[in-house]
């Protein structure tokens, strides 16, 4: 058969975000794949050098649409480290709630993307509905549905609204109640099993070598989660498990996503139970005169896709000197994806890409 060059993206129904892969195909077989990011490069890191500390705060969440809260968290953490700000305990609990809710929303979004990629609209729509319920919670809490701009340096911007706990528990029960449906229709679907089993397989050694993190690493059997390793917020005070699998293929990754959703529901419930009374915001100095002391730091959190880090340098002025986000999709979307796509079928491009949770805006920043 003839060798064809196929452009998968940036405008493609199977592409989540503006990302492009150039494929060399022969029939349905892929000979070579080149990831081609840059369609969404907005130069955030450079832009942040032009803005004051507080003005960067509404900006960072925009790096990633799917899970903006971990971006806010990592920025807030870095600033707090540099300026040596102590965050009130209640704020830490609220942060954990927000982060877990957004992990849940992000995983549901992942379910949507995965199901959608396989043409499985039914589950996709359900996942979107349940994600919307979480967005409703976010709207109550922060006033916005997607870009929350909520976790600020010094704590969080507002306390939990009245009746939030009841509403959150209600939503979590609704979602938890639908897990059997998801299991029956999606995770335990025979045809889904056929499609995902053994696809995009990566071994433990390869994963280590390629700098893989998140559930892709955990799918190869390495129990590595920053929430456990370097606890931030209140992850050292709540009880949750890190699900792992051994196979390292798309199927086990999806199952890890499912298990993590259940763990997230647990964690949120625990946080809502344990949350202490008190302040939620430690006032940072006046934003017009806020100079962070000289220094540098690297902080990281476990986002829904893996290690999200932020290297930040301050030279004691009112603006950051250098920020560099270490986004989880960066190694996943460039190295791992190229490796896994080799010799795969065209039908599996989206399959593999989504199972790696590749998020284009993160790669480009």
């Amino acid at each position: 058969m003839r060798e064809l060059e196929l452009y998968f993206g940036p405008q493609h129904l199977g592409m989540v975000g503006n990302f492009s892969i150039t494929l060399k195909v022969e029939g349905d077989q892929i000979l070579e794949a080149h990831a081609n990011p840059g369609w969404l490069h907005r130069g955030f890191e450079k832009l942040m050098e032009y803005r004051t500390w507080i003005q960067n705060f509404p900006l960072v969440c925009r790096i990633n649409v799917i899970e903006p809260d971990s971006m806010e968290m990592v920025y807030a953490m870095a600033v707090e480290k540099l300026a040596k700000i102590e965050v009130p305990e209640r704020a830490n609990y609220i942060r954990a709630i927000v982060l877990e809710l957004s992990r849940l929303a992000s995983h549901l979004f992942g379910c949507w993307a995965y199901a959608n990629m396989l043409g499985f609209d039914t589950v996709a729509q359900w996942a979107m509905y349940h994600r919307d319920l979480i967005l409703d919670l976010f709207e109550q809490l922060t006033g916005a549905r997607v870009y929350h701009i909520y976790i600020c340096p010094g704590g969080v911007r507002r306390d939990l609204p009245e009746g939030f706990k009841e509403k959150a528990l209600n939503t979590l029960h609704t979602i938890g109640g639908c897990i059997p449906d998801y299991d029956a229709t999606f995770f335990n679907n025979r045809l889904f099993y056929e499609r995902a089993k053994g696809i995009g397989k990566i071994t433990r050694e390869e994963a280590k070598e390629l700098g893989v993190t998140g559930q892709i690493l955990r799918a190869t059997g390495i129990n590595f989660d920053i929430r456990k390793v370097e606890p931030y917020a209140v992850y050292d005070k709540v009880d949750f498990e890190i699900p792992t699998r051994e196979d390292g293929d798309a199927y086990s990754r999806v199952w890890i996503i499912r298990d993590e959703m259940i763990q997230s529901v647990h964690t949120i419930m625990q946080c809502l139970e344990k949350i202490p009374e008190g302040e939620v915001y430690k006032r940072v100095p006046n934003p017009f005169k806020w100079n962070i002391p000289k220094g540098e730091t690297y902080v990281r959190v476990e986002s829904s896709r893996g290690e999200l880090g932020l290297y930040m340098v301050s030279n004691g002025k009112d603006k950051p000197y250098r920020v560099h986000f270490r986004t989880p999709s960066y190694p996943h979307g460039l190295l791992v994806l190229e490796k896994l796509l080799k010799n795969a079928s065209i039908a599996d491009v989206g399959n593999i890409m989504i199972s790696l949770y590749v998020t284009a805006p993160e790669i480009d920043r």
Partner: protein
Amino acid sequence: MKEKSKVNGKPSLLGPFKAIKYLFKKPVTLRYPFELKEPSLRCRGFHLNDWDKCTGCGNCADICPNEAVTMVEIPEIEAKPGEKNERPQIDYGRCCFCGLCVDICPPGSLRLSRDYFHIHFKTSTFNLLAKDEKIDKEHFLPADKYSVFKASLAHRKKDNEGFSSELKYSLFEPKRVSMPQVKPEERKLSFVEQVLGYSKEEAKQEASRCLECKLCEDACPAHLKISDYVRAIYEDKPDESLRKIFEDNPIPAICGRICMAHCEDACSLGKRGEPVAVRWLKRYASDMIEDYKKTLRLKPAKSIDKKVAVIGAGPGGLSVAYFLRLKGYTVTVFDSLPGGGGMMRIGPPPYRLPIESIDKDVSHIASLGVKFRFNTTVGKDILFEDIYKNYDAIHLGIGMTVSHSTRVKNSEKAYLALQFLQENKIGKKVKVGKEIIVIGGGNVAIDVAREALRLQHIQYPEEKVITKTVSLEDWDIMPATKEEIEDAKAEGIQFNPGWGPKEIKIEDSKVKGLLCIKVKSVFDEQRRFRPTFYEEKEMFLKGDMVIEAIGQGPNFSFIPKELFKKLEFTPRRKIKVTEFGQTSIPKVFAGGDIVNLNLDAITAIADAKRAAEGIDLYLKGN
């Protein structure tokens, strides 16, 4: 649920058909626009702005990360101290609805509503001058008249407030760094300075609160560059700060203690919280620098062969001398007191303004080459005619030096405020009674009362002593500052507001007390001072000493008759001057209390700066 998470399910072909059950369940989606979802109470939609509260400070425009907010001048609004005639306009092509503008808004006027629809073909309609239903009745509709099909920036719901400003989460600090002070029980026993002054850390922290909206600079009569010198303090550069102050104000040590602080009244932070302690910060800047001359290295310009006489070494006189000296003129200052400061030297009691602070400022001005002739009363030691003849220009900054008397029966037995204060501060201490009555409700009255209390404690240790005040004005219109009243109360001074003096009771030519009558009203319809009384309601206050502190007037007796005739006055008995302080006698300039209705030091300094300009122009032949 937890146990399940470890279990890998068994893939099945029939299981998925479970999903069919949803065919018979009610769908969960909404049929927009017939079914609507109410936005949450914190929804961040379009802006609302309460124009009555908004001060036009422009902090929203400064913090906006996207430069979406611009301040637009509104001609209908009148600019006044503490309020600009500008209001924010938001460009929704840029706005990201982060709500930082809400959190920084000092008066809390800017809020976000729950409206978020706007569809229009013209991009110009995306600019909105944020208002709320109070002002804009046309575009805000009640629920029954509102239709979601027309929803836009010009068709909005009433009472639809969303994300609003809360002081708890504001980005600015509403609380002032508390000033360390001597406790009332301690300070009333002696004349130690009450306010201790900020430490470096405290000053920096307090300075960090300033949002630099510059409302204060407009409100300050002398237009000091307040935000600049506060920033310099924040950046730990007191010398830089002092240099900024000296551009407009040569007596920071005095002003930093007794200034009426119009800036703090205008401060936007004061709308909901406490204003930035601008006065204390100025004091901090002047206290930090031991020697102004060494730090500032100010040098007069090349000498000009013109002589200027300044009569009165009060704040105005000192300032005019300073500004003229810097311009190169030869300046001589005449004052009847033994040192500089004028009214500042005798008026404010030492616990508020120690003599050393005055001398610090005065000696710096003297070190620049200004000649001082103290203990020289014009009209007695030197004749005004001689000055008029020998000098090229004269500045009158004589202030209000004569205390008014109530002129009630036996009022000659009472002490006058200025006399009392002067004797205590730079002369022999007055022998006070055990039960003192002070008449008046102004700052001078309170100074007198507090000083009297201290003297009582010094002269009658371990004895029961009482100081009371009587004032025409009730609490709400009492002219003294709140702070002063609070301090006085804390020290145990009793207040009797709303009573007017009628007669000082005398027995055996000794004061026995004051007979008062109830005040009906203080001002008439034109807001002029014209008190009326309920003659039948009387009250007798016991006391063995009465001090009158009801106001002062100027003393022009040193000016010869033929010159005085030429001086023109305004209807309110102030000297009429041009904008450069020139009186109707071309050679004579005036400023301060004798020109202004505002009787305070900073106004005098503002006048002095203008007068110095005027004198300069006049002497250069314009």
